[in-house]
Each structure stands twice: as structure tokens, then as C-alpha cells.
């Protein structure tokens, strides 16, 4: 068994850790780095619970190897906010009841963060397309869509204030 040293930037911090070549990035994040906010549902790319940002783009961490993150930048749900200082998307999910059990939520948030930055004014249809790769077994999606619309509105209000 060969161990590889993986050096990467995780949520803004440079880290190094050892990984066997077969270790999935999702398991590296959860078990090696101890960042258990990233959830694992299916481990074959279907559910989206394990979505993280890899060099700024949302990807399935269960379909990558930890060694592939060497020299790259990853962001997990822990980078968004804290209970006292939530990210606007987290606030909107809270306010609009966008989660019940919360298992799927980290994947939705990490999918939506870059999406809203690039598409600040999405329609309901566009939101549904953007989250088509994330499964939620609780909410029926309606409240998640509501939360995204709310987060987009809030962003606009904030921008108007600054102008």
C-alpha cells in the first residue's frame, strides 16, 4: 500500500495529509480532515449530498480520489458560516424551511453558492435545473426553491443598499 502526501487548500487553509490511492475525496474530507459537514449518501454520483467546490466548481466528492486534490483548492460547507453568523443562503434555508432532516443540505448549499454568484437573478425554472443533481427525500423541493428565491432577493436588497 503506497501512501501519498496530499497538500491542498481546504476552506482557505493550507493542509497536508497522507492518503492511500483508493481513498475517496469524500472520505478524506470526513475521516482524515474531520470535516463531517460533507455528507455521503450513495457513493455513485446520484444523490449530490457529497457536493463540494473543487477549484471553485461544484463536484461530487465521492467520484474523486483524495490524491486528485493534491495542489488544488477545495471548499466544504464548513466554509459558509457559523450558527451566529450564517451565510445568506443558510439564513434563507432556515427562514424558508428549506430543510427537514438536513442530510442533503450541505450538497444543496455547495451547489447553490457558486450558482447564485454567477446567476444572481434566477427564475424558479432555472433554480430547479440548477438543483436537478441533488436529491432531497424530505422537503419535496418546494421550500428549497423558495429559499433560493429568498436568498436572491436578499442579495439584491443588500446591493441596492450599497449603491
Amino acid at each position, binding site marked *: *500500500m*503506497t501512501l*501519498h502526501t496530499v497538500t491542498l487548500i481546504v476552506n482557505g487553509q493550507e493542509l497536508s495529509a497522507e492518503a*492511500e*490511492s*483508493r481513498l*475517496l475525496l469524500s*472520505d478524506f474530507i470526513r475521516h482524515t480532515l474531520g470535516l463531517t459537514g460533507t455528507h455521503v449518501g450513495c*457513493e*455513485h*454520483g446520484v444523490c*449530490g449530498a457529497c*457536493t463540494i467546490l*473543487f477549484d471553485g*466548481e*461544484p*463536484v*461530487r466528492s*465521492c*467520484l*474523486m*480520489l483524495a*490524491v*486528485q486534490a493534491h495542489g488544488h483548492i477545495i471548499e466544504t460547507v464548513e466554509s459558509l458560516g457559523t450558527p451566529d453568523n450564517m451565510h445568506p443562503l443558510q439564513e434563507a434555508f432556515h427562514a424558508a424551511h428549506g430543510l427537514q432532516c438536513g442530510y442533503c443540505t450541505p450538497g444543496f448549499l455547495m*451547489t447553490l453558492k457558486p*450558482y447564485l454568484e454567477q446567476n444572481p437573478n434566477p427564475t424558479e425554472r432555472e433554480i430547479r*435545473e*440548477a438543483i*436537478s*443533481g441533488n436529491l432531497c427525500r424530505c422537503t419535496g423541493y418546494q421550500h428549497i426553491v423558495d429559499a433560493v428565491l429568498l436568498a436572491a432577493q436578499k442579495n439584491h436588497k443588500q446591493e441596492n443598499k450599497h449603491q
Partner: protein
Amino acid sequence: MKPAPFEYIAPNNLDEALIAMEVNGFDGKLLAGGQSLIPVMNFRLAQPAVIVDLNGVTELDFIRPNPGGGVTIGALTRQSRLEHDAIVRDRVPLLHATIPFIAHPQIRNRGTIGGSLAHADPAGELPVLSVALQARFKLQRYDKERWVNATDFYQALFMTALEPQEIMTAIEIPPLPPRTGWAFQELARRHGDYAQAGVATLIALDDDGVCTYARLVFLNVGEIPMVATEAAQLLVGERISAESITAVVNHAIQHEIEPTSDVHASADYKRHLAGVLTKRAIRQAANRVTS
């Protein structure tokens, strides 16, 4: 749901990758986007002894317009890049319009054109498009290279012309003939799922609206992308009408596709579906013909 152990090699350029495959081709696997390979490794349906990771070979990530029209695309180009690229949009609109049918945004951020073509899933959109557009693939080994037509590349279920040591490095898509319209139609149970059936269509019409060229290639109704040559030929010399379309559709679905039943749909249903989609696709392609 974890891969079996393997040795990991990460070449930094194409030469290194070709050498790695020359040495390890028989018990190793190339890793591109990993969106098909890692799931089968997680299920342990594949247990390669060596993984040669192509992701550091960035020289295979390119989109180049060809002088005479058409494009050449590097095998490692991500599906999401094809979706947002202006050259692809202008020169191969059929490809541009079809990418959103492939899985979901997160998967297209990793999945590559070469990986999808080499994986050869009969339900994959890109293999069908490559056959419809008469693309050519550049297959390289350390000491030699060859070009293979998409129509010859797909041989049987998940079987292609690729030799174990070969790397697909580029995909060349020729320009469409003049006055040619295009369409892609598919039906999936949920958007982003693999489709139950689908069809890519090209139609060329002359000034009088008479068909001069037709091509129909089907998705997920056979072991490989299914080309309905005879049915397409029935349209040549005809105008696009309810009668001419019905004749084409009936011939194609009765004689030129081989759907099999699965848990979601019977073979008969897929046959029917392929017919409905073909009717729509022929009309849509004909409407897109511009002089």
C-alpha cells in the same frame, strides 16, 4: 462501496501518459472525469491494478476551430466547457444543444468528452452525436497514432476499437453540409437521467424543400448508437410531409433498432417512443434548415 486497492500514476504530459499506458494498459485504466469509472470501481465492478490519471495532461483540454469549418476538441475537455463555449455553439450547434441532457451540472464539471466517448454507453448522448456528425477520433499509442471514424469505433455493448494501451486524444467534428438542419430528442424519466430512448437527426433540403440528405442515429435502442441508414434514404428525394415521415419512422423502428426491455420500459414501449421522438426530430431539423 469503496474501490479495491490500486497503484496511482499521475503523468504531467501526454508523453508520460502514453508511456504509462504502454506499460500498464492491460491491467490499468485511464481516469478522465471519473464520472463513470469511479462508480464502477466503488461497486467493485472494475478493479484495475493501476490507475493512470489523465487530469494532469492539460494539453488534451482544448477546443479549436478547423480552417475548413468544424472543430477539433481535446479528449480531456470537460462537458461543462462544451456547454458554454462560443466556438462549439456557433460551429456544432447540435453538440451545444445536447450537452444539457447529460446528467447534472456537477457531473458535467468533471465528465469529459473523451471519457464519455470511450465509455461507450449506448444510452450516452455523446457517442450518438459523434456517429450522427461523422466525427473522427485520434487514438494514440507511444509509438503510433491512428484516426478512427466514430461509425467504426462502436463495436458491441461497451466494446470499442480502442486497444488497451491507446489513449483517445482528440475528436474531430466536420462541418455540416450546407442547408442542413439538426435536432436531438430524448425522453428520460427525470431530467438528467439516462434516457429511455433518443434520436439525433440531420436533414438537408434543397430550394424546393426536397430532402437531399438525411441521417438518423438512435440512443439506447441497441448495443451501440444505431444508425437507421435505410429509413433515412427513404426520405431523400421526398418533401417533408406526414406521409413521408411516417414511412421513415415505421421503417426505422421496425427494422433498424433493437431495443431490449428493462425495469423501466419494455422493448415495445421504447420502439414506440423512438418513433414519436423521430417524428418530432425530423420536423424540428427540417424547420432549422436555412439557405
